[in-house]
């Protein structure tokens, strides 16, 4: 999962909104809290965030409304100029890019699905979806072909010539998704891309993105409010509060070892058994006997076995080789909801 060079790397990134953020951040005392900054008349949209996103990774960002998720992602794509820190994309400091290079970067590498869709009101579904291709200078025929392909993929056949205002919210959202699918960017920013979809299409779309990610090794930053969705998709989850990233780790670690009280509260209601995998519980030095479990199995998957079995240590295998054993008690604790 982790390649050596992160695709996106941000160090101590700040994004402050207000009348004069540049001079504010210079004169700001160290360790000022979100509320103190707000009392000074500024909003810390992103507050001292350091995070890396690796190639082929799906990073899910979660947090309450207004916690700065969209703002952070906008900083990644330089839709916002950051106030402090550095962001590099594939080794290039994006704040130092010229207008031309930035356009080139966006055209060749990036795609984004917007929270409120951002459809061009005067263009039909087809023209909206073909828009990025048009900007890239593709000829009319090719981009039409491609657009029709993705229209089919998102299930909007027959609506090619509709205008956005003639579509329902979910349909509009699918146009936004299709627009970014059409270009299959290497780096994908998805801001609550499925929020308006019904469960059926939502699942189809999730599968589609998972498929693309695995098949083409895409890097995806995904914002959602829905934990189930996050768990299905995420390699890692970043939890934000008041502009800062409270914790960024794999789902298992987040539920097993919340870094802060806030994260613990935030993840309280999750059924841990569905999150934690055998692979995480396995201790390398421990030795178990009998039939091994697959490392990707969740505690929930193993429930029946855990209850009926009597082994103390259960071996865990990954891709056919045993990597250790997990204590059955630990797994049972998680299953039964006792805090280990």
């Amino acid at each position: 999962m982790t390649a050596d060079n992160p695709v996106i790397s941000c160090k101590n990134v700040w994004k402050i909104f207000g009348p004069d953020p540049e001079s504010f951040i210079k004169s700001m005392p160290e360790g000022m809290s979100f509320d103190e900054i707000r009392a000074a008349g500024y909003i810390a949209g992103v507050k001292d965030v350091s995070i890396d996103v690796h190639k082929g990774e799906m990073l899910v960002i979660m947090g309450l409304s207004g916690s700065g998720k969209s703002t952070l992602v906008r900083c990644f794509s330089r839709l916002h100029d950051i106030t402090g820190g550095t962001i590099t994309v594939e080794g290039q400091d994006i704040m130092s890019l010229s207008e031309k290079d930035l356009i080139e970067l966006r055209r060749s590498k990036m795609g984004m699905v917007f929270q409120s869709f951002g459809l061009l009101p005067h263009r039909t579904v087809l023209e909206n979806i073909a828009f990025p291709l048009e900007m890239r200078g593709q000829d009319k025929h090719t981009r039409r072909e491609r657009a029709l392909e993705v229209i089919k993929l998102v299930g909007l056949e027959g609506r090619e010539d509709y205008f956005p205002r003639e579509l329902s919210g979910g349909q509009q959202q699918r146009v936004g998704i299709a627009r970014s699918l059409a270009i299959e960017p290497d780096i994908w920013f998805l801001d609550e891309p499925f929020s308006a979809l019904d469960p059926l299409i939502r699942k189809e779309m999730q599968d589609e993105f998972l498929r693309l990610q695995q098949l083409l090794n895409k890097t995806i930053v995904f914002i959602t409010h829905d934990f189930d969705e996050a768990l299905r998709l995420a390699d890692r989850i970043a939890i934000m509060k008041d502009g800062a990233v409270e914790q960024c780790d794999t789902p298992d670690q987040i539920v097993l070892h919340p870094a802060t009280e806030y994260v613990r509260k935030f993840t309280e209601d999750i059924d841990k058994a569905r999150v934690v995998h055998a692979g995480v519980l396995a201790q390398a030095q421990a030795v178990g006997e009998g039939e091994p479990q697959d490392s990707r199995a969740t505690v929930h998957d193993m429930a029946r076995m855990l209850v009926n079995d009597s082994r103390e240590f259960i071996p865990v295998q990954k891709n056919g080789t045993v990597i250790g054993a997990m204590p059955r008690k630990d797994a049972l604790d998680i299953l039964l909801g006792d805090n280990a």
Partner: protein
Amino acid sequence: MTAATTTLPSSPRSFSNAQIALAFVAVAVVLTILQYIGLLPAWMHRLPEAIIPNFASVLDTVFNFVKDDLGLLALTRFLTEGLEWLLDFSANIFFGKRRFPNIGPIPWTAMAAVASVIGYYLGGWRLALLGGGTMVWTALIGQWEIAMQTMSVLAIAAPLAFVIGLSLGIAAWKYAWVDKAIKPILSVLQTLPFFTYLLPAVIFFKVGPTAGAVATTIYAIPPMILMTTLGLKKVSPEVVEAGKMSGCTKAQMLRHVYIPSARTEILVGVNQVIMLSLAMVVLTAFIGMPGLGAKLLAMMGSFKLGRSFEIGITIVLLAVMLDRMSKAWVIKQPEHFERGTPLWKKHSMLLLGLGLFIGFTLLSLVVPFLAEVGRGQDFSQGKELDNLIKAFLNIEWVKATTGFLRAFLNVQVLIPFRNFMLSIPTPAFILLVAAFAFALAGRREAIYALVFFSLVALSGWWDRAIITLYSVISAVSLAALIGLPIGILASRSKKWSERVLLVCDTAQTFPSFVYLIPAIMLFGITDVAVIFSILVFAMVPLTRYTIEGLRNVPEEMTEAADMSGAKRFQKLWSVQLPIALPTMAVGFNQAIMFAFFMVIIAAFIGTQDLGQELQRTLAGTDLGKNFVLGICVSLMALTFDLTIMKWAADKKRMLGLQ
């Protein structure tokens, strides 16, 4: 009136403002009393001639320098040629002037058919009827050629204003400094009397259609700039971001994202450009441009009321047609066709229009009447209408009423008021205006008022300026006396509000010129006719904003008043009116601006104000004087504009309405 308004309630922090204002008023009153008892030295009453600087000749020198030495004239004469070519082209198409491309004139039947199809496309059969009907009326009443003379200039001036306005609007949106530079120029331009555009246009761009087109274009540009900037600012940020993420360059952003997304505002701008252009093109009659305006001017001059009336109707019909069609265009959203719709069906309207056009053109080759309504073939009832109007005016009670109004208003109200205003010493008058601005708006506006009116005094046209102001104030006051009650009554029911608003909307599209027709009909060539035409013109915004203000009072507030047992009148007086007042003030302001505009136009009936002098300058090349006069009008109008708008904004903020 100035003194009375100072006692109006003003914003809380201006408590001391009110005191200063009161002090100003006191000084003014003392000065005036001194004048009345003959103790005021003459130089305190009016500025002595000797110290009045000759702005006009200074300006003339500057103009001459720019015109000749800097070669501006050479440049504009060069531009003139291009413009002339365009105008000749459209003149050939519309009314068959013998110029390139020598294919016109288009038969009136073909034009009518096309107008109907466009109307149908934009707004269904009602607009089709309006479009076709207007054309048919114009042709049958025998005014086709003059109407097309007007339209041929409009067809060039309006698109020109659109293009220039759009570009400047984009520049102002993009560069803050352009915006800063343009804003004050725009507010001056919008208050500058139309005649001030005309003379420079004539001098720099040759008499006739070219000068008319230039003046019209310049007059119509400002709203286009404002609407463009407004629209571009309103484009949703996510749409912009979507454009950026699609890798748009700056030019692509503008072309594919911003401008299409600002479509509605830009089209509203187009509507305003068209309407202003029409209003102005008619007025270019004053520099001898042929067309509806010139004919109307001639007919009114020789008191041929029947024909004037008919031309008035033509102008009004054209105005309403253009307005409704361009508004329908604003609302019209693109619609999709089902897949597999054949090409001819997608473009059925275009094909229908083309077909009818060609059909009627061919048909008119065989039937000349369908090409042109010849002399003596028209259905004009000018003579008969003349007699009818004269008979009407001679009916005993009508005669008695107009006669009474004429005599009463003139002798009892207008003339005494005018004389009173003239008797106030110049410094006292300036102080009164400053006090008005102080009490209503604040220190900044008061300083503006002081400076602006002092400049007017220095211009040497003080008496004429006061007469202008007198016409404006009396007309607006009378308009308020009639317009406010109408507005208040109408606002009581939704149905009546809508009806009256519709009337106001329609009336507002009429070019100002036509308001002179009923005035002259009823009151002949008198001061009362001038006041009457201004009054009607200014009543429209007053009534309209009163209704809008009252109808938009939040429901909770009236309900709260109901619950506390307020009577209808109490509710109106203590709840609805105070909340509606800022909006009504905007209407009041517009009424004053309209009045300043109209008083200058009405000058040709014969007044002794700035307007008359302005019209005189049109005959010569007295550019300096023309400008001084124009600026005087503009300065007075600006004073009111700044003060009232500031007051309305303050008040709105205070009431939490913004």
